[in-house]
């Protein structure tokens, strides 16, 4: 298992390098300009100067290599500096965002908490409600519960979040005034009151996202449960006199979870990709908003860094999902 993991990690290195290169080329070729949102009144010479100040006068390959160095060398060193108070990065430039004129990584770290709180929690909640729904739908296949589950999850797929989000805001923020319509990222949870506030402001974005996630994962759960409910070992468990609870929640569930867990693991990187639309609707300003704003502003270093981190997570969670499969399923032993 260890060698398998190591081998996969080794393969991942060239893959990731290649991906970073493709992302770079793509961003390079895509139209757009970091100065687009500057007023039209700025004369061209000034624009030229501003452009040079961003490093845009360098040829593309130099910028790519620079980024590689910054991402794989300077940034990790900087972390070391932070941790041990050393000063390796004193003389080296970190990846600087064009919009903020500040290290891109710092902003990313800053965004991480709210992203995890909202998108991550929504994923978690989605999983938590999806599993029982999937289990019951499968156990009572074709019951009304199952039928409604299918119906609702299809609706969940087909209605865009920019719509459901606004509906929630209008109902719960405008009409009922239960929850705030705007997420306060500066809120620090220190006591009960601030905790209640935090919960209140998370409810709507989490609901919107969780419903979307749940409708997807519950489908997987259902399919997997159905597969396993028909297996011979279920009959064995019943023949041993085990109660239905034990049979379903222990024997069947344990087996059904194996593929579902990997599906869930594969979905985790999307948390870090943020939820662009939902974040926008509720003003959560997480990583998704960071990415989309950076794209609009043509902040290439930021987009490149964010996208690459996302690619990195995607590749890693692919690996994790595979390894997890091996861990959960005793039948599979890599190598």
């Amino acid at each position: 298992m260890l060698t398998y993991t190591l081998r996969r990690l080794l393969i991942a290195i060239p893959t990731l390098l290649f991906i970073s290169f493709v992302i770079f080329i793509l961003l390079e070729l895509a139209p757009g300009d970091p100065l687009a949102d500057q007023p039209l009144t700025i004369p061209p010479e000034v624009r030229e100067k501003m452009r040079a100040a961003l490093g845009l006068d360098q040829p593309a390959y130099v910028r790519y290599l620079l980024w590689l160095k910054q991402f794989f060398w300077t940034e990790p060193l900087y972390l070391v500096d932070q941790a041990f108070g050393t000063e390796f990065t004193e003389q080296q430039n970190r990846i600087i965002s064009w919009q903020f004129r500040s290290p891109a990584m710092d902003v990313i770290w800053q965004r991480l908490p709210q992203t995890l709180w909202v998108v991550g929690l929504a994923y978690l909640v989605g999983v938590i409600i999806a599993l029982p729904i999937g289990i019951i739908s499968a156990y009572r296949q074709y019951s009304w519960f199952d039928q409604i589950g299918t119906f609702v999850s299809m609706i969940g797929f087909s209605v865009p979040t920019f719509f459901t989000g606004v509906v929630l805001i209008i109902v719960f923020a405008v009409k009922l005034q239960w929850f705030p319509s705007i997420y306060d990222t500066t809120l620090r949870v220190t006591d009960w009151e601030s905790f209640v506030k935090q919960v209140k402001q998370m409810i709507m974005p989490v609901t919107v996202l969780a419903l979307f996630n749940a409708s997807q994962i519950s489908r997987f759960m259902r399919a997997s449960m159905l597969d396993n409910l028909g297996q011979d070992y279920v009959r064995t468990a019943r023949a041993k006199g085990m109660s239905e609870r034990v049979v379903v929640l222990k024997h069947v569930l344990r087996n059904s979870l194996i593929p579902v867990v990997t599906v869930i693991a594969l979905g985790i990187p999307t948390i870090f990709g943020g939820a662009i639309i939902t974040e926008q609707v509720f003003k959560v300003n997480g990583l998704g908003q960071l990415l989309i704003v950076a794209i609009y502003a043509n902040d290439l270093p930021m987009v490149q860094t964010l996208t690459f981190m996302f690619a990195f997570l995607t590749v890693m969670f692919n690996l994790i999902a595979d390894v997890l499969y091996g861990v959960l399923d005793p039948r599979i032993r890599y190598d």
Partner: protein
Amino acid sequence: MPDGAVSVLDVKDLKTVFTTRGGEIHAVNSVSFDLKPGELLGVVGESGSGKSVTMMSLIGLLPSPPADVRDGRVLFGGEDLLKCTADHLREVRGADIGFIFQDPMTSLNPVFTVGYQIMEPLRKHMGMDKTAARRRAKELLELVGIPDAERRLRDYPHQFSGGMRQRVMIAIALACDPKVLIADEPTTALDVTIQAQILELVRDLRQKLGMAIVWITHDLGVIAGIADRVIVMYGGQIVEQAPVKELFANPRHPYTRALLKTVPHVRGGREAKLNVIEGQPPILTAPPAACSFRKRCGYAFDRCERSNPTRYSVGPGHDAACFWDFDKGAPRDV
């Protein structure tokens, strides 16, 4: 064989029907038999004749829907298993009636250790704690002849060979000292040499533990080796029932006769051409109104088309459901 003793299991008029999209399937039709203490009852019949469904109906193992046990009575320990509560049925399963399934490869849960799976019924039915259950599990594994039992308890099913998995299944079935053991084709998936090992094991265990066994198979050779009494099933019905020697010596149902003739032997003379039973097994979309074997039967006559024969006694402990009387070589006059 303790003849005449009171039966541990008495089945009367069992009827099981499956409801499918294509209509009903009457898989078991008025099956009655009994099982005496310490006896090994062999059940033979071709695939789809309802052997497994019958046995699973007894202890409510069939998924419902589609299965529906329509009728009948299963007396076990003075109680009708078809009418008792679900909880009581669960008590009986595993504790009083052990079940071994055909396919050892898929019948064990792949994600739990063998030890866990053996201990599960022990803890549930015998109220043992973990250590006691583990000790007992180890004993059981040793009993079924798995060396190094202590260590193997921690292994997962896929780490066992087919023969060993089947032994594990047997260990699970035996865990709570059941009064009745139902073995549904326990050796069909195994090699002959491994089958021989298992058969040896079962003989051994029977001597030691003395429980009553129902042994389903379609291998007449196996039946001949271990059974005391045999019932032959065809089309969801019992067509013949007899002590084992009597059955092989004097089969009284055309199907049994044909079946005995089709099998080739490793010893003795070799037929130039194998005998076959032509035709297809019946499709059980309705309860039988006529003899279900008539289409493939060499002795069939008009009466077979009209009504379904009941089981006529043809000798001591021997009955057959056929209108043809082989002793007389003429239709039975009842």
